[in-house]
């Protein structure tokens, strides 16, 4: 009995170490009260212009939280951490008894305890190589943009002018001093972790991300496509170690970006386990995904990384990458042109296509040691963000829905897609309505007995064989089988070895399922009979 008491006492002491401090609650109000709201004085002129372009009317979700409601709630809380006008919500510290009282206030719709768990950082940056070789670095930087045919933008002096990009990250160390980023027009900064304006510290992650949006390597070679955009920098992450307050910081930053007229948000951040389960990646469950959806509804295009969990236990995309209207960006290996081993898998848990598109996942960008090749979907996301900014400059009258669809259709695999590559890497020649600069292959799909064959045109095959006998080994062939519910049952990337190749057998699939094959610029499909 004594021994049991001792064990119990030890457990009690142990659990006290894990006992929660002040409890965080989210207080949702019923309405915005009777208040006058002047959109003209509240929003930056660019925000009003974006709304007009996207057909987004000012509505009560834009009004601030009603001050009398805040004042009525204040005596019952220890601290108000943040206010959200989009969700009409306060995040507060209080205790259970006072929370019960708050819930009874007439203007409170409901109150929910905010989870207080530690989570892991999802977006990681590993410096793969310290390169002192200028020429090599120039080639890497050039390639990460050339893979998107980015010169189609830069040759026409499309570099993100008049586009406002908000960047959410863990910090932007030395961004204001780095030679590769000194040219950036940074209009506003805010640290939502510390409630301060200074953000040029805490993490090199954001510095590298900025380099992939609009940086230069040695003031000569672009590392991102949008060096002349206007930037709004927000620190929303505390790194290392993370707390669920970061999702609230993200929401607050998104409202701030909306108010200041951001056209585009890049968020190389993500939330996974142990905060959430994979089946909660449905675009609706997490606060940050709902915030990203709301930003899109306000006319802002949100670009986010798919995550680096592809070879880990989690495996799938995280939040906000699961949100429906967010461009979720996977990473591809620059040497193989297909998915990097860490890039997270789609789809979302409710079966929607994710990631949407991809970009190079090992990028040359600004780093702690000047420049470095950093790996992670953290850096494929800003490469696409730069692309999107250029597209928005080229087509300033398109709304957020049109931009979203256009970026997907710019994918080099479009209309083919899968849950690792999405629609592929966006191509600027597609965006500008130009001809494909690369010769497309000529081939056909033939059913023979129970097998589907890909047959390359003889003349095309002989021509390329004469140039390179191993040419087939350098070309990726993409194949997927779409199930009856629209979700892919199978997808693969393979390399052909002969002119006539059996791709699959119908015995392994159901009648009526659709097979799509993409090879060198052409997509063809065949239904399984």
């Amino acid at each position, binding site marked *: 009995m004594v021994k*049991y008491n001792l*064990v*119990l006492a030890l*457990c009690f002491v*142990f*659990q006290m170490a*894990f*006992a*929660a401090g002040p409890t965080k609650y989210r207080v949702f109000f019923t309405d915005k009260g009777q208040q006058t709201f002047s959109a003209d004085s509240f929003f930056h002129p660019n925000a009003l212009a974006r709304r007009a372009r996207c057909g987004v009317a000012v509505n009560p979700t834009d009004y601030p939280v009603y001050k009398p409601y805040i004042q009525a709630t204040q005596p019952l809380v220890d601290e108000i951490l943040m206010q959200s006008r989009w969700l009409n919500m306060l995040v507060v510290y209080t205790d259970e008894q006072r929370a019960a009282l708050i819930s009874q206030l007439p203007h409170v719709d409901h109150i929910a305890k905010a989870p207080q*768990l*530690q*989570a*892991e950082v999802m977006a990681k940056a590993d410096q793969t190589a310290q390169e002192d070789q200028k020429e090599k670095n120039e080639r890497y930087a050039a390639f990460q943009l050339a893979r998107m045919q980015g010169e189609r933008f830069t040759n026409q002096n499309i570099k993100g002018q008049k586009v406002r990009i908000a960047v959410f990250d863990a910090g932007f160390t030395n961004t204001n001093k780095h030679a590769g980023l000194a040219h950036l027009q940074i209009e506003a900064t805010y640290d939502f972790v510390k409630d301060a304006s200074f953000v040029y510290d805490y993490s090199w992650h954001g510095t590298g991300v900025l380099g992939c949006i609009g940086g230069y390597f040695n003031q000569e070679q672009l590392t991102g496509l949008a060096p002349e955009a206007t930037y709004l920098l927000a620190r929303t992450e505390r790194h290392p170690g993370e707390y669920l307050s970061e999702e609230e910081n993200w929401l607050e930053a998104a409202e701030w970006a909306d108010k200041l007229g951001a056209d585009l948000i890049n968020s190389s951040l993500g939330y996974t*386990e*142990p*905060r*959430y*389960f*994979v*089946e909660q*990646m449905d675009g609706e469950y997490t606060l940050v995904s709902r915030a990203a959806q709301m930003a899109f509804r306000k006319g802002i295009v949100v670009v986010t990384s798919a995550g680096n969990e592809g070879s880990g*236990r*989690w*495996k*799938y995309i995280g939040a906000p990458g699961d949100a429906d209207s967010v461009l979720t960006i996977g990473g591809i290996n620059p040497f*193989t042109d*297909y*998915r990097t081993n860490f890039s997270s*898998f789609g*789809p979302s*848990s409710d079966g929607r296509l994710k990631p949407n598109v991809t970009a190079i996942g090992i990028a040359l960008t600004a780093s702690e040691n000047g420049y470095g090749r950093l790996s992670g979907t953290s850096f494929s996301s800003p490469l696409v963000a730069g692309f999107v900014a250029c597209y928005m400059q080229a087509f300033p009258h398109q709304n957020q829905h049109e931009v979203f669809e256009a970026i997907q259709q710019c994918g080099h695999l479009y209309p083919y897609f*899968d*849950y*690792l590559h999405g629609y592929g890497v966006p191509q600027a020649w597609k965006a500008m309505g130009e001809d494909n600069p690369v010769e497309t292959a000529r081939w056909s799909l033939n059913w023979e007995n129970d097998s589907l064959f890909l047959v390359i045109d003889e003349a095309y095959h002989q021509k390329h064989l004469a140039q390179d006998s191993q040419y087939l*080994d350098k070309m*990726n*062939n993409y194949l997927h089988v779409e*199930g009856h*519910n629209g*979700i*892919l*049952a*199978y*997808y*693969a*990337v*393979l*390399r*052909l*070895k*002969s002119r*006539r*190749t*059996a*791709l699959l057998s119908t015995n392994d699939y159901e009648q009526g399922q659709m097979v799509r094959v993409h090879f060198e610029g052409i997509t063809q499909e065949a239904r399984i009979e």
Partner: protein
Amino acid sequence: MKNRLSTLGILLTLGAFSSLHAQTMILEEKVDTTAPLQTNSFGKNSNHYVQLYTGLGLSFGRPHGGLAMGFSRNFSVGLRYKRKINAAQSLLLETQYSIYRQVFDLENSEGIFTNGIRRDSQFGNYQQFNATHQALELNIAHRFNFDWSRGNHLGVYLDLGVIGALGIAHRINAHDPLNDDATLAIKWKEQTGIKWAYGFTTALGYKQWSIWGRYYPEGALAFSDQSVWRGAGLQPYQVGLSLSIN
């Protein structure tokens, strides 16, 4: 002819080989389109969670109590309700059915119980003795979750609890190998009515597996309060392995 056949054989082999290797699979993924996406981790640390579980164990008795160690075993199946307090703690309510089969070797043991059995005219000739107890048990435990990522996973945990048992059936089979294996069976419940017992439990678990232990005071669910029969009740120490089904 032989050479032609050999050549044909080689060509056919090469042909088959080349078609088998006409493509290099770089990556492929089969998607289970019928099942929702799930992580591989077991067991949500949800606010409310109900689990079905089962367990097997061994009983250990007191010295000279006559229990044949290694032969006395138990089986249980139950339903566990877990109410999460916070990431590190939960409360458990377990209702289970257990059956304890305790084997006694009277010949090789000396003690109040075994001597008493031998002196009993009913049982004097019997050398081996099984006491089987069936019980409905209710266990209330406090769970401490030590897993590093315990926010949403069961992980590694320690349970400490108290258990109550309601005896629903008791049976003694006495066995005399010298007398053509004659057996005597007595159903205790018919003679003694309802029996209650209480004890303590602990478990150390990892995801759906756990090693558990139970302690019952002497005489739990015993035939009567007479010392000679108290030894046939639930043995004081039960140790076993448990598996949660979901």
